[in-house]
């Protein structure tokens, strides 16, 4: 296991907490009707974005999915900017045109969430190709769910990445569900990482444990940065809530959810930090309180941010 400084571990813990609390707040404000459209929260999956994105520099690229809040926050988007975009405000990074499902911020290397399942995978290849072409040491991380690996774009993109030896890490967050359909209904294999063999891409399946993900991601990112090509990391993750906020998960066994909630990636990490005396009740409380404040401020920022003028609609379609 990689040795991490106490400070770093506290930081990771804070980041995971931020994602979870942000998602919880979003469920609340969404229920209030303050956010239009629909949103998909990643509660239960926080370890992956943090463990993976912590390997990245600001200049590295990241492409993600509809369930993309965690990735965007882990890649460095500020909560207020994030919230402004989800509220559809003009001062969001996409001027509020993107919202949750398409959030992008190229200043942070965030290529964009995607409303099309599998749509972002070939795009991530393009970013990886660009950095290879420019001979930088940037890498690209591409997140997607196990459901997305049934789309043709997954297959085409992994093959292309392999042939071109692109500096890219494909990260499949296998939460066992694609909308309302369990994995066993849409594929006959269990470990999605097996699919990498079709392209001679190294792959690994890890549990939802922060350190496992961290170590595997570190190795794959290093590999990519050294010009050794693509890899596929599968995390056996779990989705606690519905596909979108408002989905009551009637199709799902309560027990399965309970089991998932019992092996909470954040609780396990916290337990470890407490055991190792890296975290104590006081620090923990301060972290929670600070994040609550930060999130409240972000919501307040979004609420008071300017709504778009109707005239913005027709602005700058063309460069």
């Amino acid at each position, binding site marked *: 296991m990689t040795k991490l400084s106490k400070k770093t571990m506290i930081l990771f813990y804070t980041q995971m907490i931020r994602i979870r609390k942000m998602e919880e707040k979003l469920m609340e404000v969404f229920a209030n009707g303050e956010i239009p459209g629909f949103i998909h929260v990643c509660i239960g999956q926080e370890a992956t974005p943090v463990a993976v994105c912590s390997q990245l520099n600001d200049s590295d690229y990241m492409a993600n999915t509809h369930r993309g809040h965690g990735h965007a926050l882990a890649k460095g988007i500020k909560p207020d900017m994030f919230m402004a975009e989800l509220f*559809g405000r003009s001062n969001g990074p996409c001027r509020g045109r993107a919202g949750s499902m398409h959030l992008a911020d190229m200043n942070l290397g965030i290529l964009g969430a995607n409303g099309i399942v599998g749509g972002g995978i070939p795009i991530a290849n393009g970013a990886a190709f660009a950095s290879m072409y420019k001979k930088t040491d940037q890498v690209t991380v591409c997140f997607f769910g196990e459901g997305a690996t049934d789309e043709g774009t997954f297959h085409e993109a992994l093959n292309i990445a392999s042939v071109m030896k692109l500096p890219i890490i494909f990260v499949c967050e296998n939460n066992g569900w694609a909308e309302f359909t369990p994995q066993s209904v849409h594929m006959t294999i269990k470990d999605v990482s097996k699919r990498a063999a079709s392209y001679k891409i190294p792959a690994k399946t890890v549990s939802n444990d922060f350190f496992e993900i961290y170590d595997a991601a570190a190795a794959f990112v290093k590999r990519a940065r050294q010009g050794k090509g693509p890899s596929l990391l599968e995390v056996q993750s779990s989705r606690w809530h519905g596909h979108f906020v408002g989905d009551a998960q009637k199709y799902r066994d309560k027990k399965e959810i309970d089991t998932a909630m019992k092996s909470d990636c954040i609780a396990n990490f916290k337990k470890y930090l407490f055991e190792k005396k890296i975290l104590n009740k006081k620090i923990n409380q301060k972290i929670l309180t600070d994040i609550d404040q930060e999130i409240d401020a972000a919501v307040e920022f979004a609420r008071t941010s300017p709504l778009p003028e109707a005239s913005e*609609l027709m602005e700058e379609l063309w460069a």
Partner: protein
Amino acid sequence: MKEIRYIWGVKEAIYEEMEKDEQVVFIGEDVGSPGGSFGASKGLLETFGSERIIDTPISEAGIVGMAAGAAACGLRPIVEIMFMDFMTVCMDGIVNQIAKMRYMFGSRYSMPIVIRTPGGGGLNAGPQHSQCLEAWFAHVPGLKVVMPSTPYDVKGLLKSAIRDDNPVIVVENKSLHALKGEIPNDEYVVEIGKADIKKSGTDVTVVATSRMVHESLKASEKLSKQGIEIEVIDLRSISPWDKETVFNSVGKTHHLVIAHEAVKQCGIGAEISAVVAEEIMDELDAPIERVGAPFVPVPFNLEQVYLPDSENVVTAVEKTMERLF
């Protein structure tokens, strides 16, 4: 008569046709026990079983292709594509295969396939979940395209589509799914290719599709107060479309407005406008007006500004009335 929601009209049509004809199967993502993302197949699994209600991987091209082969071998598949925007990932199957198989193989067999898909805005679902792409399919020989606007029409047209021996694209509109309306208790179908005069009038013909039918009816109320009586024609089918009904109406009103939610450029409105101007130009007392969405992607936040509505219809009607030769 009974009152049902639009989406129930969809379900009733599927249910009734599946009961009647064993060759009908229903294929899509999350259509099994979840009953579909918009509820179109709620309960169907229980009745027809997983052999006929087929839950698939997220593989639209795979699904549509499978429907093509199944139809060629005697089944009558109905495919659900969850959002019309996702038709982009299975265009080959629809356009190069399904639309052409009958003709290119010598018109020796039939291709009874229905592809149902909800288009349009209304859910603030943003640029990749709100498009109206029906004109693409109307540009492809070998496909029929219908766009029902009411519970009555969707049930009747979907039933016709399922019975049709040719591929039919059935375009719903998400914002209509919850709409209530009356339908007969007894069985009925609505013929593909026939428009419906949803409100008659003498001053201006408004040819509308899908959600814009309702916006046109709303416009009609406002315009009535100004003494303008528009005739609202619900096109219902856009390929083939009902020239006769449109021409008759224009022959009476001598003014034409065409309203759809898609962008105007190369939309179905362009086709109707062109055909009317080409074939019965003398009937027109004023230039045709088209109502459509602005030429930008559908933004997440400004959807309300973006979507064409009754106000746009009113403005177009007024504009076409300004001038009387």
